[in-house]
């Protein structure tokens, strides 16, 4: 082969491969353009005012995933009519939670070099009070019942070849002082009554009991633990094994969580369980599918959680005591929070 032949082959290949690549980009761009069109048979979404202030009627706030101009915005529906028309707020969040007039909104910031993320604390009018940079991809967010503390978890990935090492980073902010605990891994871990240190600790999924105590998941040595955290003492104490993404019931007696069950397929390992904190007795819920969400208590006896759906994700509900059956609450929604 002469030099010219080789250069011609290279040129043809560049054109051909460039064509394939451009085609793939154009196709994907067209497809994402479709998502801005109102979807057929989708829920009605209209613009309106969304407030986090407690009102007489109970409301459910979600990140709206229905196709159309309000996709990804925080929207509200009456708690007793979740399939009804949605009121969109104009505020876009990847993850969201709210309580007592305080909201936490985890957002992506699309830069030219890379995506960055931030955690934004919102007041009752969904106006920004304070923002914090976040180290990775948002996954969980919670506000304490009083609205004073907020917590979030992001995924951080190492930049090693093929970057398969993921870790989490969880932060807690006191909205009265704006003091931030950037990384809960710096808290003292008390495992089986003794101080425990490890490089591989990961903490995620904070759920608040009050303005001092919280629960979360601690992972180390390939195992997960339910830990009770103390913001003042800066400690994490292990309570129970095999608990991920805990969610404390409003009466503070039980933890809903995802449990890694034996015999499940490795790509669908989790089931929704409830742990009684007094008796440490575990109860399986009637939801038998794989759950990968931090469940939410609608009241002291009902759980709400997200499952993959046609437009990303749907919200489902199941009784917390193991009875009944699972039921779809609303389509095209994720990151729920009840207000009022």
């Amino acid at each position, binding site marked *: 082969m002469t030099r010219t032949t080789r250069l011609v082959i290279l040129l043809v290949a560049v054109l051909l491969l*460039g064509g394939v690549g451009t085609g793939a980009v154009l196709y994907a761009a067209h497809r994402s353009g479709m998502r801005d069109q109102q979807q057929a048979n989708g829920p009605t979404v209209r613009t309106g005012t969304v407030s986090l202030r407690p009102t007489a009627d109970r409301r459910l706030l979600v990140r709206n995933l229905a196709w159309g101009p309000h996709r990804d915005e925080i929207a509200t529906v009456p708690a007793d009519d979740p399939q009804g028309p949605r009121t969109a707020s104009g505020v876009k969040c990847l993850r969201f939670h709210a309580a007592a007039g305080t909201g936490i909104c985890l957002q992506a910031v699309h830069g030219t070099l890379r995506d960055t993320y931030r955690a934004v604390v919102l007041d009752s009018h969904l106006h920004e009070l304070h923002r914090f940079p976040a180290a990775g991809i948002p996954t969980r967010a919670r506000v304490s019942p009083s609205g004073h503390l907020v917590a979030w978890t992001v995924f951080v990935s190492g930049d090693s070849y093929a970057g398969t090492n993921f870790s989490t980073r969880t932060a807690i902010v006191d909205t009265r002082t704006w003091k931030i605990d950037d990384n809960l891994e710096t808290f003292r871990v008390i495992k089986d009554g003794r101080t425990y240190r490890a490089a591989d600790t990961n903490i995620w999924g904070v759920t608040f009991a009050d303005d001092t105590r919280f629960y979360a998941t601690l992972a180390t040595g390939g195992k997960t633990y339910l830990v009770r955290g103390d913001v003042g003492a800066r400690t994490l104490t292990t309570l129970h094994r095999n608990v991920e993404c805990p969610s404390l019931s409003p009466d503070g007696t039980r933890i809903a969580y995802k449990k890694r069950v034996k015999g499940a397929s490795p790509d669908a390992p989790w089931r929704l369980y409830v742990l009684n904190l007094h008796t440490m007795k575990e109860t399986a819920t009637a939801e038998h599918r794989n759950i990968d969400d931090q469940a939410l208590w609608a009241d002291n006896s009902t759980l709400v959680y997200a499952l993959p759906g046609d437009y990303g994700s749907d919200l489902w509900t199941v009784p917390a005591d193991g009875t009944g059956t699972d039921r779809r609450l609303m389509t095209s929604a994720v990151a729920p929070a009840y207000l009022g």
Partner: protein
Amino acid sequence: MYLADSRSTKAAVAPDTRPGRRPAAVPGTVLALGAVSLITDVSSEMVTAVLPLYVVAGLGLSPLGFGLLDGINNGVGALVRLAGGHLADRGGRRHKVVAGLGYGLSALCKPLLLLAHTLPVLSGVLAVDRTGKGLRTAPRDAMISLATRPEHRGRAFGVHRAMDTTGALLGPLVAFAVLRATVDGYDAVFAVSGCVAVLGVLVLVLFVPRRIEPAGAVQLPEPDRPALRDSLGLLRRPELRRLTVCAALLGLTTVSDSFLYLLLQREGDLRADLFPLLPLGTAAFFLLLAVPLGALADRVSRRRLFLAGHGVLLLGYGLVLSPWHGIPAVVAVLVLHGTFYAATDGVLAAATAGAVPAQHQGAGQALVGTGQAMARFTCSLAFGAAWSLWDGRTALAVTAAALAVSALAASFVLRPADEASPAEVSA
């Protein structure tokens, strides 16, 4: 060293050493291999950059425990690397074929990513991708050694590593440009990455010669087919044995990048959002310094520079442990870390090339590289255990002390035979 250099230059009556003409220190083959690495790294780093986002946001999965297979991957990776080096030496130097297989295998994995929607399948595809990388590394380095005159190998490897790192820095930029243009079109990122990977293979096929005649003073007799025994028997050569032992010894005390960044963040109380920029800092200084330090290695001794590089790393550890914190301190550590890579990565390959005869270049590169990789993996396990036992700071202090001892031992081991002249080695 100066003597050895001038002797070999005199012995080689090559046209490009005539006065008035700049010697072609970096042959076309090395530039072609550098281009292949650059293109391939753009492709693979595109995937790396968006993979976490794809898993969490695209697929909606929790990726913890995703790295669980890393240990197995490391072990298999080491075996594949040895096999790649050995196979490449067999049958009259099939370096290009084996390297091509490796690049091809990785290219094949990119479209497969489009079909992987669960973590186990995704891990599998990534493992195959890594196998491709393991397979191609030793033959590629062997081709660089063979194509370059011995006295210029440091610079040649420096140029290759700089091109490689350039690709690694460009990949994420391309990936996010595609992601921006398509609004979360991860499939488009994988498709473009696949096209780029195919282009890399094509550049290899078209522009890297099938047989690379050793550049240098001595022409070899037609090589025999080295058997597995011969490849492993390379360790009987005192020079290669010393180099392998030292690379492994120093590898045992080299803290993995992720641990170092973790410590840097915790000790320096670095803002969380700056954390993802740490690897970019190291890569940038590696890129800047790879060529000058490679050239320096050719002039002074490669072994000495390799040792000096570890001295720089030791300084970096000291800085992490020191009370000096803040952004300037972090930047200083990244400069030292990047310098360490620039002074050791390509330089070790160049030193290895000088310690093995031409027909064993593949196996030689594989032995030293694998020894170093396995040692670093062992260090990671030990470091994690030490962190649990004491704490991160103490673990680093102990490792730093061990690195000082290792470096001292290595300087003693490497002292008696400073770089041999090419004539001695290839004879």
